């Protein structure tokens, strides 16, 4: 099976958020009702019961206000850091590109949470597991398309073979650049060696809350190359292992918080 993916055209999205509801409907995820905080975007980011979220970004320039929308969810990376760091090999990549998880194997260690360059997987306390978008693999393998793409009313979300989607994206970006979007770009073609969630953006990635050069942190690389090969040996040393994990987790979390503090979320006024 060829590599499959979604193509999200931010210039066609009207932020109706039908994708968010369709995702919850298909995955039977409960509503996470938080009070309105002065922004249409009700959650900061994805959460354990919200696999996808449309983010809202407001800008002003000489021409007037701009309002950008961007759907965030698991990018289904070609070289997923979450798979690399998973000590139980619960996370894996399937043959057509979806990053999936064997829930039987997940122990809720959350290494994937901190390794993800897009901060997507989230810890689900009740089940002591980490959850995220599955690219609706079960729907796709049954001949369907992901719930989000199925429900999109404007044609902003498409599902198909990655190569074909890339061809569409290239044409579209060419058109956009010639028609008032000089900064239009494809996102996900080369980032991290390629993503199976492709984006057509009307402006630079940062303005859509996407890192222009996403990187897998050096800690993750260290974990992948040094710690993980010895993981089997660590298991008998349960106590030491827990201590190490506790330390690493805290360290990664602190690092993440530090990063977040510096980042500007255009959604805040």
């Amino acid at each position, binding site marked *: 099976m060829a590599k499959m993916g979604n193509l999200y055209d931010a210039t066609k999205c009207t932020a109706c958020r039908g994708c968010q509801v369709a995702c919850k409907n298909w995955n039977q995820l409960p509503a996470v009702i938080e009070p309105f905080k002065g922004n249409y975007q009700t959650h900061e980011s994805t959460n354990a019961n919200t696999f996808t979220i449309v983010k809202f970004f407001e800008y002003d320039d000489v021409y007037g206000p701009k309002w950008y929308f961007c759907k965030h969810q698991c990018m289904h990376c070609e070289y997923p850091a979450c798979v690399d760091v998973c000590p139980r090999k619960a996370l894996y990549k399937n043959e057509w590109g979806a990053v999936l998880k064997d829930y039987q194997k997940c122990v809720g260690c959350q290494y994937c949470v901190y390794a993800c360059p897009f901060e997507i997987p989230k810890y689900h306390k009740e089940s002591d597991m980490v959850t995220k978008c599955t690219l609706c693999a079960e729907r796709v393998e049954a001949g369907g398309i992901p719930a989000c793409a199925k429900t999109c*009313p404007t044609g902003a979300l498409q599902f198909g073979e990655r190569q074909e989607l890339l061809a569409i994206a290239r044409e579209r970006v060419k058109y956009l650049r010639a028609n008032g979007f000089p900064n239009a770009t494809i996102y996900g073609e080369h980032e991290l060696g390629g993503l199976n969630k492709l984006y057509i953006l009307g402006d630079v990635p940062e303005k859509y809350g996407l890192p222009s050069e996403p990187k897998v942190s050096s800690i993750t690389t260290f974990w992948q190359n040094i710690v993980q090969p010895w993981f089997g040996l660590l298991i008998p040393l349960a106590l030491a292992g827990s201590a190490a994990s506790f330390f690493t987790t805290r360290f990664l979390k602190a690092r993440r918080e530090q990063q977040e503090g510096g980042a500007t979320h255009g959604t805040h006024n």
Partner: protein
Amino acid sequence: MTNHVIDLKNTDCALIIGSNAAENHPITMKWLTKAREERGAKIIHVDPRFTRTSAVADIYAPLRSGTDIPFIGGMIKYVLDNELYHRDYVAYYTNASFLVAEGYDFHDGLFSGYDPEKRQYDSSSWDYQKDAAGNPIRDMTLQHPRCVLQLMKKHYERYDIDTVCKVTGCPKDKYMEVLKTYCATGAPNKVGTIMYAMGTTQHTVGSQNVRAYAILQLLLGNVGRPGGGVNALRGENNVQGATDMALLFHIIPGYINSPMNTAAHKDLQAFLATETPSSGFKVNTPKWVVSLLKAWWGDSATRDNDFAYHYLPKRDASKNYSHIAMFEAMYEGKVDGLFIMGSNPVVGGPNANKEQAAMSKLKWLVSVDLWLNESAEFWSYKAWERPVKNPNVPQLKPTDIETEVFFLPAAGVYEKEGTASNTGRWMQYRWKGAEPVGESKPDLWIIDQIAKRVKKLYENSTLPQDEPIKNLTWGYGHGDEPEVELVGLEINGYYVDSGKPVESFANLRDDGSTTSGCWVYCGCMTTKPNGELDYKPKWRDNTDNSKTGLGLYSNWAWAWPLNRRIVYNRCSVQPDGVTPWPGDEDRVLIKWDPIAGAWVGDDVCDFNKTLAPDAPGGTNPFIMKPDGVGGLFATTTGMKDGPFPEHYEPWESPFKNVFSSQQNNPCIKIWEPDKQGTSDKYPIIGTTYRVVEHWQTGALTRNLPWLAELMPNMFVEMSEELARLKGIKNGQKVIVSTTRGDIEAVACVTKRIKPMVVNGKEVHQIGMVWHFGFKGYAVGDPANRLTPHVGDANTMIPEYKAWLCDVRRA
């Protein structure tokens, strides 16, 4: 819509004004996106607020709420001054060339015939000059000083670009961009569409706002052609159907005026004589009325008893029965009982504090809904909680209210069968997807049961006044569930002798041999060769029958009238009936076939099928009008408040009207003069709207957790500048006040709303959603506790969209 949703893909330019289409009609954006990609179409959004529609538009132009007429009036002037109008279209298909009677005049905001005592016009002078035979006199050169085009030019002389920008607050560069882009659709090979919704209509000049759009569209030759039209985006999935079936008080089904207790309506003959014009397609009114009476009273409606015309209730000509008037009467204790189905006035009614108080004076209330909504529980403690004590707002407790409330649980849309007429007039059948939950029942079942039981109460009565109920036909099957197709058959109409469906309204008769519950729907049902009923709303052929790819899909569902997908489609071809508009061959819908002697094409012709283009009336595409042409000038019976749209300020406005000394629409009825807020106390312009996540009063969506999650609380949007001025931070609670009440909401401080400079003065606008109430998962104060009880002069639609308020930190 004159056109339909898919047809938006055929446009060269979409002017979205008074509508937030991307949020409230998301599917329209699919087709506009296609138009942009495939035709290079432009999307223009004109709105007080930068919305999700503005975000995907090519041009966003802000305007002060309530200034559509100056905005469009300036466009009309620009089109006329620069001769950008579609010359042939205007000359042949509109009344531009008609000479107006000498008595017509306009001076300082008032048209001829105004009576300040009655606050209404004697419109007899708004008429054409006629020749000896009674035909209007035309000047095809359009140069005569009394021709409509020249009078219009004179009328809009005052709407120059600088004045328009000064009044609307639209920056001049943006306005110029809109003028240049949209008015270019006057070229014969270009077609533009206007899409509007409640942002247009919910004003004291709401009907005239729509008139202004229609005038602009006619001047640019944009009506009756693919990609064009005056397109009301309907806010509810079946509001088109509800209107067709006479939801409104002033009509009976099929847009026929409802009878009044006047001499002109004293019997059927008098009624028909008054309501039937001497020309145009409405000359058939007697056939429609008699067929309607036959549908309702069957064998009891005979030629000898005026087809039971005396059974029809007659409304008091001196009274108004619209929403506001009804609740005012209720407030005065004049109404005993109220049925609420698919409505929630405690959230959705204007001046909701007053309407809620009015409901407490009812003896009984029946609420039919999926949920116990705010109106069903208007008597509860929670319903009377207010964020601040206000002496003008009644404070009641459940013990103060004697209204007996009945609640009937209703089935949801997927739990019942039937048709709904969408915004593009498509009558679509919907099959049941699931069984109703618990004891809930479809609306049709509820109405059927009530009617059957009421009829039973009267079955042995011998009183003449009980005959309308006793003799009312009510035959939708004998089982517990009424049969939907039998309702469809009654709406369509049947031959009295055979019981077979009438194929077209052309076959309806005024001799009692046919019935039709709503003539515009006649033709939605026929008989198949095998004798079975063919209910066309069930058609599901998903292929485009248009040879040029116009997306007509004529065999998918059925559109009234007679499956015409684009009305006035005679305009899609030149007056000669055979030549396409230059450069526009692909957008011809019908043309004259001289050999067949008929109009042929991919769409069903909205014209007399065999009337040749060179025959008298052969170039009159607007068949419903007595004169057969588009009305740039509205003659005597057209409008209550003038033949041309004229700007008047909203009832509450911080500004003096710069166009005339008439501050407000001179024909509006003012219910509560003491509640008119002034800008010294209430300096901010308030408006209300919807968001994509919730629907209407939110009864449906605020009870769905996934949607409650997306928009969890009541909020008010304001500019960063106003927030700074008032010391309000984003996400903080604020109080919004008007003379009618106060609400609490969360501040949404945004770059998307800007202060405006109007008449050289800075003014702030704030906007709020009206979806919220105290029930469900997502709760908040109803915005309509703030809105006034004042309505449009023609329709009485409330002025929800422009009023004065103030905002402060809670």
